[in-house]
């Protein structure tokens, strides 16, 4: 699971109002190189939940992103920032671990890079 996906996932247990973002318990994180495509990164930036990304990246061992979301101007001019964003979003893979609901503590396992978000019968 990459952070670009983590940025979209939330806990949907019945009654939970604060299911996002999921905390990451990193078991095994690997790095897989992906071709840098600055336009794609700029394209995605607008819809990112920044804090969730920064916290998630830190949990996966990457602390190079700024705490606050930069303004759009930075995207145009600062290629090194874009590369850091690219690395965080696309190149860090959580292979084994868990995603934890911030409200209930419920753990969703991640195996072979795939989160299992299925709810149990008593959670729907």
């Amino acid at each position, binding site marked *: 699971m990459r952070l670009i*996906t983590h940025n*979209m996932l939330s806990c949907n247990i019945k009654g939970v109002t604060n299911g996002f973002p999921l905390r990451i318990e990193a078991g095994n994180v690997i790095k897989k190189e992906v071709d840098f495509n600055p336009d794609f990164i700029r394209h*995605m930036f607008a*819809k990112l939940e920044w804090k969730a990304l920064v916290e998630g990246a830190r949990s996966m061992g990457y602390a190079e992103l700024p705490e606050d979301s930069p303004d759009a101007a930075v995207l145009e001019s600062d290629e090194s920032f874009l590369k850091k964003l690219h690395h965080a979003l696309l190149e860090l893979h959580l292979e084994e671990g868990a995603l934890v609901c911030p409200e209930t503590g419920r753990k969703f396992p991640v195996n072979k890079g795939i*989160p*299992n978000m299925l709810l149990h019968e008593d959670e729907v």
Partner: protein
Amino acid sequence: MKAALAPSSLTSLSYRTNSSSFRSSLLFRSPSSSASMTTTTTRGNVAVAAAATSTEALRKGIAEFYNETSGLWEEIWGDHMHHGFYDPDSSVQLSDSGHREAQIRMIEESLRFAGVTTDEEEEKNIKKIVDVGCGIGGSSRYLASKFGAESIGITLSPVQANRANDLAAAQSLAHKVSFQVADALDQPFEDGKFDLVWSMESGEHMPDKAKFVNELVRVVAPGGRIIIVTWCHRNLSAGEKALQPWEQNLLDKICKTFYLPAWCSTDDYVHLLQSHSLQDIKCADWSENVAPFWPAVIRTALTWKGLVSLLRSGMKSIKGALTMPLMIEGYKKGVIKFGIITCRKPL
């Protein structure tokens, strides 16, 4: 308004018509899945337990069915697990590649029907797509590539999710698509996240059509589109409360081996969408455009390679294959329809 079409009755429909077939299939055919019910002793208690866990059982059945059959399908038909779109009355014996092109055409025709590809502005605005019931990710990879967008797929089958990821990596699309094991009826997303909500032949598996539609509507972004392409039964005419018994029997047989809950009609989907405040609700009957598909699938199953692969795959695949002529019968007799239903969430 016909009582049978009211959204609340769609939930009860699924349990009325199918809890009995699932109860029998659980008690008599799948020893492993009936283990959870052996703690009760009277038949009555077992029936209640079965009804309560029938959704779990269906979910498990679907996951196991696709865990077992996906590899086989992919070997013979490739990574799109949906019907091809053909010109009506095309009786030409298409080659393999002709059918695969038809499957791509199905995606393009669906986008066109929904109004997505006829509007440049709208196309450019598609940044996030959810593929509900993604199979091994054929649609996700195609759509992500086409729109330069990010696509997230959900499936009940871990085998499919794994395979989908492997294929994405092999096609250098791993940065644009990702796959999760999740339930379409309880999607692990916040509200309004997706510009395009895509359900290509997965609606048939949803035991609660109202809940399914609720989720699709919940996760679509304002201004975003929902596209549902699915197998339905024919629309009921005025005054009809249900399908004829022979029609229901035909569908029941198909339900067992394909792990389908009760069927609904295209009209039912339209009514469900109408109960939310959505715009531009459209539907069409594409049954004529998919007619060559099942005969083609059967032909591939009857080839030497097909038969050997089926035998290697297991009972679920074999039973599935034996059910295919029923699909053709269903289409021929006008019971089964191939429908598309699309709409847009207002800004």
